[in-house]
C-alpha cells in the first residue's frame, strides 16, 4: 500500500463524524505456513481501502516492499514454529508488538505440518531433502501461543476474512471483537443445511468444531473437516464413539481428526484414542 493510496482516502475520513485518531501501525509476520491466511487480508477487496485508511500497514512483505521498522501496534502472525530460528524470531516479534493476533490453524494449533509430531522428523528430512544436513529444523510444529503470550487467536484454515475485518475493526475502534464461539452445527441450521451425518451417514466434525467458516462443506454434501479447530468443551469422545459404532472406519476418522488442527489438544487426544481403538479392533498400526 502506497502513501498516495492512503491519502486518497482521507476525504472519506473527513466526511466521517469520527474524531481523527492516529492510525494503528499494523505488521504481518509469516512463520511456517502456506501464506493463505495473510492473503485473506489482501482478499478483502471491497474493504481493502477502508482497512488501509483505518490502519497504517507498516510491515507486510507479501503486499509491499516498503517495510517500516517497529514498534507496531498490531502484529498479525501467521504460521507455526518449526525451526530454532523461528523460535527466536517470534520472541523478537513479541518484543516490538503491542498486540499480537495469531491468524490461522498453523499459528493457533501447529497446522497440518504438525503431523510430524507423530513421526520421526529426521525420517521426513531424509525423504524430502537431497542434503538434509543443510536443514535445521525442530522435531515438532507448535502453535505460537506455546512460545509467547498471544493476545487474540483467529482460527481457521484459512481464516475468515470477515472475522479478520471484525478483529481489525474492533482494535481500531477500541472495542471487544465479536466472534461467535458456537459449533458449526448452529451455522448449518441457520442456513437450512440438512445434517449430512444424520441424513447421509457422512462423518462430520461440525458438532465439535468452532464456528467461523459459515458451514461451507456440509452445504456441499461433505462432512466438516474441522478447519476452525475444536469448539470449547467439545465432546470428541462421544462423537468418535458414535461414528465408530455406526460403521465409520477408524481409517476414515483418523485423517479427519489429524488434519489442519491435528495438534489442537482435543483433536489430538481424540485421534490418539481412535488410533488405539483401531489397533485393538483389527491390529492396524497407527501411532
Amino acid at each position, binding site marked *: 500500500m502506497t502513501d498516495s493510496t492512503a491519502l486518497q482516502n482521507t476525504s472519506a475520513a473527513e466526511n466521517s*463524524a469520527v474524531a481523527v485518531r492516529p492510525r494503528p501501525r499494523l505488521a504481518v509476520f509469516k512463520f511456517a505456513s502456506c501464506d493463505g491466511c495473510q492473503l485473506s487480508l489482501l482478499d478483502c477487496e471491497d474493504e481493502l481501502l477502508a482497512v488501509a485508511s483505518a490502519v497504517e500497514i507498516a510491515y507486510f512483505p507479501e503486499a509491499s516492499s516498503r517495510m517500516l521498522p517497529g514498534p507496531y501496534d498490531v502484529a498479525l502472525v501467521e504460521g507455526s514454529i518449526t525451526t530454532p530460528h523461528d523460535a527466536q524470531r517470534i520472541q523478537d516479534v513479541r518484543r516490538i508488538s503491542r498486540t499480537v493476533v495469531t491468524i490461522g490453524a498453523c499459528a493457533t494449533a501447529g497446522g497440518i505440518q504438525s503431523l510430524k509430531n507423530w513421526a520421526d522428523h529426521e525420517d521426513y528430512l531424509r525423504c524430502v531433502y537431497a542434503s538434509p544436513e543443510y536443514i535445521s529444523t525442530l522435531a515438532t510444529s507448535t502453535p505460537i501461543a506455546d512460545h509467547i503470550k498471544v493476545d487474540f487467536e483467529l482460527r481457521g484454515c484459512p481464516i475468515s476474512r470477515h472475522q479478520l475485518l471484525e478483529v481489525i475493526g474492533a482494535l481500531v475502534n477500541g472495542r471487544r471483537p465479536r466472534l461467535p464461539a*458456537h459449533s458449526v452445527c*448452529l451455522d448449518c441450521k441457520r442456513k437450512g443445511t440438512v445434517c449430512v451425518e444424520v441424513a447421509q451417514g457422512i462423518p462430520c466434525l461440525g*458438532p465439535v468444531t468452532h464456528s467461523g467458516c459459515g458451514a461451507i462443506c456440509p452445504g456441499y454434501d461433505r462432512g466438516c473437516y474441522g478447519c476452525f479447530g475444536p469448539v470449547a468443551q467439545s465432546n470428541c469422545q462421544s462423537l468418535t464413539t458414535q461414528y465408530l459404532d455406526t460403521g465409520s472406519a477408524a481409517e476414515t476418522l483418523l485423517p479427519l481428526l489429524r488434519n489442519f488442527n491435528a495438534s489442537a489438544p482435543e483433536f489430538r487426544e481424540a485421534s490418539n484414542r481412535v488410533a488405539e481403538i483401531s489397533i485393538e479392533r483389527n491390529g492396524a498400526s497407527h501411532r
Partner: protein
Amino acid sequence: MTSPTESNRSVLFLGRGQLNQLIRALADDGYQVVGPTIDQAAIVYGEITSADDLPIGWTDVQEPGKYRLQRRDDEACFGYVVGPHSWKKYLFPPVTLVATADRTKTGWQLSTPETEPPRYAFLGVRGCELAAMRIQDKVFLGGPFVDPTYQKRRAAAFIVAVNCTQAAPTCFCTSMNTGPRCSSGFDLALTEVADGFLMEIGSESGNVVAARLNVEPATSAQLESGNAARQQAVDQISKQLDTTDIRDLLMNNLRHPHWEEVANRCLSCTNCTMVCPTCFCSSVNEVPDLTGDHVDRERSWDSCFNIDFSYMNGSPTRNSIHSRYRQWMTHKLATWHDQFGSSGCVGCGRCITWCPVGIDLTQEVAAIRSSQNNPSVEGAVNSSHDNEGVS
C-alpha cells in the same frame, strides 16, 4: 380464524389430480406456497410451484441419530412424517435485521426497516406442528411484549394442514396430546387417501379457497378410508413419554447423577434446539462496519447449549454440558409450564432423530423417573453435585 367443531364440519373430497388447483389458487391469491420437497437427501420445507415439487412416492425412515429417504410402493404426496425443517424458519427467521444505526454529527440516527412481511401458504402442516405454532404464538404474541416480525408473518399465513397417516419410531405426539389428528388452527386440512384427499375447512379464508376448487362432498366410503388412514398413524406410534407430574419430577431432581451421564454423550452442539419447532431463543447483536459509523442490529437463532448464551457478570452461568442439557430439558418439559402454561414439547421427535449421537429425551426422563421408584439408586439422587446453573 373460526374453528368449527369437527361434528358440523363438512368434509369434501379433492381428487389427486386437483391438488395443483389448490396450489395455483393459493399462488393466485398472492401467497408464496411453501411445503415439503426433496433436497439434501431429506424432505425439507421449500418453495412449491406445483404438486410435482412434492416428495411423491418417497418416505422417511427415522431412528435416534439417523434419517434416511426411502421409496414408497405408491405415489403418496404426504407419505412421510416430519423432517429436519420446521415452519418456525418462516415465522421466526434464523437471522433478522431488527434495526440499523448511523452515526451523524448530532448523534446516532436509529431506524427500523419497514419491510412488507412475506405472505406464506404452508402446505403440509402436521398436528404436532400446529401445536408448535400455538406454543410459539404464546411466546411471541401472548405476553406484554409482542414480537412484530412473528406477528406480521403469522397473521398473513394460510395454513393447509395434513393429517399424518403414518408415524416414525421417534414420534410421541399422543403422549403430548398434540396429534396426530389436526383438530384446529388451520384454514384447510387434508387427509391423503388412495385416489385423493379428504378436505376439512377450518376458517372462512379456507372456505373461500375451497369454493374455487373442483371438490365434492366426501362419500361415506371415502370418509371411512380417511378414518382408517389416520388410525394407522395412531397405531404406529410406539414411543411414549410419561408426563405424570413431570414438572416436579425434573425440578426435584436437579442434582440427579443422570445429568452427568447424559453429558458424557451430549455434544452440546445445539442441533436439538435448532430442529425443535418451539425453541425460540435468539441473541441480538450489534454488527458494526469497519468504521464503526454504521451498525446493524441483528437477531439470530441461538441456543441454551452455547456457552456464551449464559454469559453474564464475567463468566458463563452454565459452564458445563450437564448444566446446559439440564437447562434445556427442564425448561422444555418442566418450567415451560410455569412460564407459558403448557409443556414446550409437542412430541415431534426431531430432537431425537437429529441428535448426531441419538440422545432420546423420553429415555432420559424415564431414567430419572425409574430411579425414583428404585430404592437401590435413591442414595445417588441426592449426591453432592455442583449447583452450577441451578436457578
